C-alpha cells in the first residue's frame, strides 16, 4: 500500500501562550464557513467584554469555550473542532500552551497525523516550542507545519522568518522529524492561512489550509501481519460466540489460520461481521466480530494474530513516559497499565533518565514530576502481547493508572522489551501446588501481618508459627528484619527501596505457597497499594491480610528496639508513623487490636481464619 490521502486529517495545533492558537482555529473555522451567523453575533457581543482585538470580532472566542478560561484569557483544556472543505474533513485539537497543561498537548498529539507548531515571529523558538515538538515526535506525529505567526507585526521580514525556520529545524532534526513545512502567516488578518498574501511576495509556498488539504500522511507501513486486540466477547446464546475488536494492523479473511496471544492456541476464522453485515475480509481500522472454528478460549485483552506471524510477548520493557499526575512517579509503586484492551499490574523498576525538553539532554533522575518526560524500565505482573510503539500506535501505546485515585498518571510508549518472556517459557510442572498441599494435609496460603513497628507482629507471627508446627503443619516465617540481612541486604529505606523490598518478599512468599507451605509474613508494609500488589500475586482466598493494630502512642511507648525514640529525635529518617505514613488497611481479612487482645487471643482468632 502506498501513501494515501485520508479523507479525514487529524491535526494538533500547538504553541506557547499568546502565540495565537485559538485565533488560528477561529480563522480556519470562520473562513471555511463553519461559523454560523448567530454564533458570530454572539462573538461580536463577547468581544467587547473579553476580547483583545478592540471592536473587531475576536475569532479566538470561537474556540475558548469555557467561562473560566475566557476570564483568565488562556486555554485550559484541549478542545476538538471539526471543519471541512470540499477536499478534506479536519479534526483539530487545540492544545493549551500553558506549561502546567502540557499533558493536554500529549493528549491532543496522541491521535494526530500532523502537528501545526505556532511560533510568534517576535519571540522566536521558545522552550515550550521545543517541548511540544518533542512530545509530538514521541507520540508518533511525523509531519509538522511550522507556522510563523504575527508576521504582520514584524513587517513580513523575510530574515526573521528564515532564522526561525533554521533554529526550529535544529530541534526537529534532533528528534527525528524531517517532513517540515514552514509557512509565514498572520492569523489576525488571515494572510497565508486561508488565502495568499501580497505582503510577502518572497513566499511562494501554499497557504496553511492548502497544505493541510493536500499533505500526504503515511499510513503505517503496509503488509503488516494481522493483529486484533479483543475488546469484548459477544455471547448472545450458546450457538454464537463472537470476538469483538478493532483491527489494529494487517487484514483478515474467512478461513485464515490465527493464533490467540498470549495463550498461543490456534484456530481458524469461521466468519467475519462488520457491524451487522457478513464480510469475507476486513482490514485495519474496521470494528469487527470474528467467530472461530474450532472455538477456543478467548477473553478480553487477548490479541488475535496471524498464525504464522507471532506477536511479541514480554513482561519487562524500556518505555518512554509523560508524567501527568500531581503525585510524582515512585519507582516500584504498582500502577494499573492499560495497553490496547488489556489491564495488568505494572511498576517502574528504574528511571533511566529524565529528558530536558528545552535542549534534549538526558538527566539523571529518581522521580518524574507532573509534565516530565522520561525513559524508564517497566515490569508487568504478567506477560503481555505488544508491538513497539514505532511499529504500531495501537499495540505500543499505554497509560498508567494510579491505583488509589484512579487518575490517569502517565502516558507511555513501548520502546523495546528488555527480556522476552517468549524465551523464558513457564515450565509446565507435573507436580502442582494442589498435589503438594494435599500431601502435607493442609491448604497452602500466605498470612500477611501488617502494622507499625512494635504493634506486635513479630510476637504474633512467632506464636502462630509455633502453634501450627505443633499441629503438624508445614510453615515458614518471613520476618521483615531478617530478610534485610540477606535477600534484601542491598536495599535502603527510601520509598523506592521499600517498595522493592516488599516485591521481593511477596515473590518469595508466592514461591513458598506454590511449594505447598503456609507462609507467615511479618512486615510493616505501610502502603495499601503494595499490599494490594502482594495480594495480586496469589489466587483468590490464598492471601490473608491481617492488620496488627496499635496506636502510635502505644507503639512508641513499647518501643522494644528504641527505634521510635531515635526517629523522634530525627536520627532515623522515613520511619513509619513518625515521618512516613502508615496507610491503614480498609478491609483486612482480620483486624487484631493488640491494645485490647492478648497474644494468645490473637492466635485463636487467627487459627479460625486459616480453616
Amino acid at each position, binding site marked *: 500500500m502506498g501513501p494515501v490521502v*485520508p*479523507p*479525514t486529517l487529524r491535526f494538533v495545533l500547538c504553541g506557547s501562550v499568546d502565540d495565537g492558537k485559538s485565533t488560528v482555529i477561529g480563522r480556519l473555522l470562520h473562513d471555511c464557513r463553519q461559523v*454560523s*451567523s*448567530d*454564533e458570530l453575533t454572539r462573538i461580536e457581543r*463577547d468581544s467587547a467584554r473579553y476580547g483583545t482585538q478592540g471592536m473587531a470580532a475576536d475569532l479566538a472566542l*470561537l*474556540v475558548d*469555550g*469555557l*467561562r*473560566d478560561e*475566557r476570564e483568565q484569557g488562556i486555554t*485550559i*483544556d*484541549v478542545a*476538538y*473542532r*471539526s471543519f*471541512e472543505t*470540499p477536499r*478534506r*474533513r479536519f*479534526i483539530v485539537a487545540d492544545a493549551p500552551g500553558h506549561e502546567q497543561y502540557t499533558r*493536554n498537548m*500529549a*493528549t491532543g498529539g*496522541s*491521535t494526530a497525523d500532523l502537528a501545526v507548531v505556532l511560533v510568534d515571529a517576535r519571540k522566536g523558538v521558545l522552550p515550550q516550542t521545543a517541548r511540544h515538538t518533542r512530545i509530538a515526535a514521541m507520540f508518533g506525529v511525523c509531519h509538522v507545519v511550522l507556522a510563523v505567526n504575527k508576521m504582520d507585526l514584524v513587517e513580513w521580514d523575510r530574515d526573521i522568518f528564515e532564522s526561525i525556520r533554521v533554529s526550529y529545524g535544529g530541534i526537529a532534526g534532533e528528534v527525528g522529524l524531517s517532513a517540515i513545512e514552514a509557512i509565514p502567516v498572520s492569523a489576525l488578518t488571515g494572510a497565508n492561512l486561508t488565502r495568499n498574501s501580497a505582503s510577502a511576495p518572497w513566499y511562494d509556498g501554499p497557504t496553511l489550509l492548502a497544505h493541510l488539504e493536500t499533505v500526504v500522511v503515511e499510513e503505517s507501513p503496509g503488509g503488516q501481519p494481522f493483529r486484533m486486540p479483543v*475488546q*469484548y466477547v459477544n*455471547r*448472545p446464546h450458546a450457538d*454464537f460466540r*463472537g470476538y*469483538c475488536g*478493532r483491527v489494529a494492523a494487517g487484514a483478515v479473511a474467512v478461513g485464515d489460520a490465527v493464533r490467540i496471544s498470549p495463550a498461543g492456541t490456534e484456530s481458524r476464522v469461521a466468519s467475519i*461481521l462488520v*457491524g*451487522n453485515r457478513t464480510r469475507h475480509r476486513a482490514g485495519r*481500522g*474496521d*470494528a469487527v*466480530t470474528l467467530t472461530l472454528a474450532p472455538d477456543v478460549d478467548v477473553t*478480553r485483552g487477548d490479541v488475535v494474530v496471524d498464525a504464522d506471524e507471532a506477536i511479541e510477548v514480554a513482561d519487562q520493557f524500556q518505555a518512554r513516559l509523560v508524567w*501527568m499526575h500531581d503525585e510524582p512517579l515512585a519507582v516500584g509503586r504498582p500502577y494499573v497499565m*492499560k*495497553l490496547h*484492551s488489556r489491564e495488568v499490574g505494572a511498576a517502574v523498576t528504574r528511571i533511566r533518565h529524565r529528558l530536558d525538553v528545552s535542549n534534549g539532554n538526558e538527566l539523571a533522575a529518581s522521580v518524574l514530576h507532573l509534565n516530565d518526560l522520561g525513559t524508564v524500565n517497566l515490569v508487568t505482573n504478567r506477560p503481555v502481547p505488544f508491538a513497539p510503539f514505532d511499529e504500531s500506535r*495501537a499495540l505500543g*501505546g*499505554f*497509560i498508567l*493508572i494510579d491505583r488509589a485515585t*484512579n*487518575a*490517569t498518571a502517565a*502516558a507511555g510508549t513501548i520502546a523495546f522489551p528488555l527480556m522476552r518472556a517468549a524465551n523464558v517459557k513457564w515450565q509446565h510442572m507435573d507436580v502442582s501446588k494442589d498435589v503438594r498441599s494435599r500431601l502435607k494435609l493442609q491448604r497452602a496460603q500466605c498470612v500477611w501481618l501488617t502494622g507499625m513497628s512494635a504493634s506486635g507482629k513479630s510476637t504474633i507471627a512467632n506464636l502462630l508459627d509455633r502453634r501450627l508446627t505443633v499441629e503438624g503443619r508445614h510453615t515458614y516465617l518471613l520476618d521483615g528484619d531478617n530478610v534485610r540481612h540477606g535477600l534484601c541486604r542491598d536495599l535502603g529505606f527510601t520509598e523506592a527501596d521499600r517498595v522493592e523490598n516488599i516485591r521481593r518478599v511477596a515473590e518469595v512468599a508466592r514461591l513458598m505457597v506454590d511449594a505447598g507451605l503456609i507462609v507467615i509474613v511479618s512486615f510493616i508494609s505501610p502502603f495499601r497499594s503494595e499490599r494490594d500488589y502482594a495480594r495480586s500475586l496469589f489466587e483468590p482466598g490464598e492471601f490473608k491480610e491481617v492488620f496488627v493494630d496499635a496506636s502510635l502512642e502505644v507503639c512508641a511507648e513499647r518501643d522494644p528496639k528504641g527505634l521510635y525514640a531515635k526517629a523522634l529525635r530525627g536520627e532515623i529518617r522515613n520511619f513509619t508513623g513518625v515521618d512516613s505514613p502508615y496507610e491503614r488497611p480498609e478491609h483486612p481479612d482480620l483486624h487484631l487490636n493488640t491494645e485490647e487482645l492478648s497474644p494468645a487471643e490473637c492466635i485463636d482468632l487467627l487459627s479460625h481464619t486459616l480453616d
Partner: protein
Amino acid sequence: MIRGDDLSGAWLASLESETIEVLREGVAAASRPVMLYSIGKDSSVLLHLARKAFWPAAPPFPLLHIDTTWKFREMIAFRDRTAAEAGVELRVHANEDGLREGVNPFDHGSERYTDVMKTVALRQALDEGGYDIIFVGTRRDEEKSRAKERVFSLRDAAHRWDPRAQRPELWNLYNTRLAPGESLRVSPLSNWTEADVWRYIRAEEIRIVPLYYAAERPVVERAGRWIMVDDDRMPLLPGEAPRQRRIRFRTLGCYPLTAAVESDADTLDAILAETLAADRSEREGRLIDHDRDGSMELKKKQGYF
C-alpha cells in the same frame, strides 16, 4: 453534487468503527450500563450503531428516556415503536414532584422548568438505576463547551462535571475505573458533525421522527422564532392565532422550547443540502442554551447532559 459526497463513504466508515469501539469499551467496563434516549436524530443514529456493535445480540443495556411530558406527541409514538423494534427495554422517568407541582415551561420559565423536569429528573433516574456507564448522543460540534468534553467524561457521585478533574484521553485508551458512586458519561458520537449525522442517516436509511422533514404545521411567531402548537396545553397570547407554515426542526426538544425553521426540505438530500449551506447554528433553536452566557457549561456542572 452535494459537497463532501465523494469523501463521505470512507470517513463515515471510520466514524462508524470508532463509535462501535467506544460502545464496546463502555459495555466491557460497565456493571450497569444504560443509554440515554432522547428520541432525536442523534439518539436514532446511536441506537442504530449500538445494534451493529453487538449484533447478533440486542444492545446489552436499556434505553432511558427522561420524559418532561412536554415532548411532541409524534416523538413519544416514535420512541415506543423504535425501542420495541430494537428489542431493548425502554425505561421512562418523569420527575413526579415536578408533575405534582405542575411545573411547566409557560408559568415557571424555561430555566426553572429545565432544571426540575430535565436536570433533576435525570439525576433521580440515574440514582434509581445505579448506572455506572451512561451512553449519550452528544457531539463536540454542538456547542462550544462540548468541544472540550472527553469521550468518557467522569461525574462524581452527585453527577457533577468538574472540568479540571477530567482524565486525559490518549489514543483509544479509555480509563474506565470508578470509585463507588462515580459514573462515566460516554459520548460515542463525539467526533461526528451535524452533517455527518445526516449523511449517515441517508446512507443507512435510518428512520427518524417525521418532524425533521418539512411539512405544513400550525405555528405561532414569538420573538422572531417559529413555535409549533402541538396540543391545546399551549396558552396563546392575546391576538395570537396559529398559522399553517411549511417548517421543520433541526433539533428536537420540548415543544414550547424548540423553535422550527421555515424550510421546504422534505427529503434527506434536501435536508443535507440545507445543513451544509446553513448559516445558523444547529442549537440556535434551543431556547434554553441562551438563557445566559456560558449557560450550557453551568448546566453541565449541575449534571445536565
